[in-house]
């Protein structure tokens, strides 16, 4: 059975706050936890300056921490957000009081609830719990230099303990765990000077590194190889054209460190023709893109734009890009190519530019 959030142990109930005083005790009250729909009858309601305590302990004023056989349901006054009274159906007397609190809604049932209501409202207005907090703050300001030094020492001690727990067993223990990495780095160290080694190159490229070659040209050639590999992966997904920005993003995402600049990727791309790769750099409206040499505008149109554009319904570049899952920039390049081929017509309006299948050319 789920326990009420207001339920407290005797020990917790006995812990009174600073300056808390009992104001009144009312008998034969009922407590209702609305969330659990749990009604507990025959309780004493103790109204203090800080809390409402519902209990069946008859000696609440001499409450001991080991009085565990009794029930204690506590509602701190500072957590009460609203208090509402409900009268009976045919009378004007208060039937029950509803409390909306941070922990949930509860109700107080009983006879002659006017008195408790006044006491509760009075306590809530006085806000005795706030006075306690201010005094405590005042005390902390004037604690003195010694207490500040103690506080610093405590913090330092905590930091030392944290670090020590991380390096339990010392650095040797750490190195034991990194034995595999140690072996790889030893292998690379021994073999890297021997010249070309495809295995080492592969290991280095997987961790985002490439060997520092002797000349700049060789560096760009190596980089071109890596960029081309990435382009070959991306061309089928992106429809044969990838913007320089996208290549820059995906390439560096793989590397994670020692990032390559867009200028370097562009220079690498300019090596493609020389290296007889099936990709090239093109510029459309000032935007550099990597384009597959096998990119066929007609086929690409049929497989991409052609599926969504029609004579009757015009779509914007943004709508088309969303449908195709490509960037708007690349979509506009494809649309420009399709317009140049006479496949697509443009409808320029104040609302925006839409693209339709070309009806006019077929007349």
């Amino acid at each position, binding site marked *: 059975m789920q326990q009420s959030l207001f339920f407290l142990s005797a020990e917790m109930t006995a812990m009174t706050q600073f300056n808390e005083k009992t104001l009144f005790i009312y008998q034969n009250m009922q407590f209702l936890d609305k969330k659990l729909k749990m009604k507990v009858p025959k309780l004493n309601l103790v109204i203090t300056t800080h809390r409402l305590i519902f209990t069946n302990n008859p000696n609440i004023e001499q409450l001991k921490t080991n009085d565990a056989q009794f029930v204690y349901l506590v509602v701190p006054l500072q957590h009460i957000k609203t208090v509402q009274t409900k009268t009976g159906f045919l009378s004007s007397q208060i039937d029950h009081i509803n409390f909306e609190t941070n922990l949930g809604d509860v109700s107080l049932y009983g006879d002659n609830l006017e008195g408790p209501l006044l006491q509760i409202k009075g306590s809530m207005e006085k806000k005795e719990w706030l006075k306690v907090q201010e005094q405590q703050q005042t005390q902390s300001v004037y604690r003195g230099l010694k207490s500040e030094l103690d506080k610093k020492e405590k913090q330092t001690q905590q930091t030392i303990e944290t670090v020590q727990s991380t390096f339990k067993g010392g650095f040797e223990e750490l190195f034991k765990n990194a034995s595999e990495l140690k072996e790889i780095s030893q292998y690379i160290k021994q073999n890297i000077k021997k010249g070309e080694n495809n295995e080492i190159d592969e290991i280095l490229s997987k961790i985002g590194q490439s060997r520092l070659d002797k000349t700049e040209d060789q560096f760009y050639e190596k980089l071109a190889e890596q960029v081309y590999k990435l382009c070959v992966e991306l061309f089928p997904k992106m429809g044969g054209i990838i913007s320089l920005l996208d290549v820059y993003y995906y390439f560096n995402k793989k590397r994670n460190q020692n990032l390559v600049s867009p200028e370097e990727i562009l220079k690498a791309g300019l090596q493609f023709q020389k290296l007889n790769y099936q990709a090239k750099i093109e510029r459309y409206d000032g935007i550099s893109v990597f384009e597959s040499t096998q990119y066929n505008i007609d086929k690409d149109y049929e497989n991409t734009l052609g599926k969504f554009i029609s004579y009757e319904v015009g779509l914007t570049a943004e709508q088309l890009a969303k449908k195709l899952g490509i960037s708007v920039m690349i979509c506009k390049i494809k649309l420009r190519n399709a317009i140049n081929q006479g496949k697509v*017509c443009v*409808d320029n309006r104040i609302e925006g530019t839409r693209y339709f299948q070309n009806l006019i050319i077929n007349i």
Partner: protein
Amino acid sequence: MQDAQDKLELHQKLLKYPPFYTLQDHKETRKKQITQWSEIVHLYFQSHKILETSISEMLNVPIFQDQSSGIIKKLDASEIREILNQMAQLGSIEWKNDQNFSVNLVSPFELADAIYAWAKEKKLIGYTETLKGITEGSQTDQTKKFYNLPQEQILKACLILEETGRCQVYEFDGLYSIKLI
């Protein structure tokens, strides 16, 4: 007749096609677009019997406006001028100045043929006739293509007849007459 019906359907289809109201960049498409606009405008002039107008008046012509979406899309003055320039090349209109132009509802060659056929019908070959007599005389009627047309257009047609050896054109004091041969 079937051709005319097909043309009408095509024009209606194009006028409902939103990109038709934006002159396209693609050369071939633009050429066809201008040609179709020329035909549509020429038919509009014919149906409304417009003989003279200007670009500013053309801006408010309903055929140049598309109301398919919320905000009306119109062809602007430069686009209309491009269409009218094409029509001028085909002889459908003649520019009077930068803004104004006259409309040839019928081409001069068609008019020339129509005048000669009428002259033959009315046995006027060998006789002299004034330009006014051709357009408004008792021997002509509303069924004729040249009925009530401006005299400049009739004169052009007569000059074509003269070129083809079918008439002689005389001018006296600014007034013209022709002798049909």
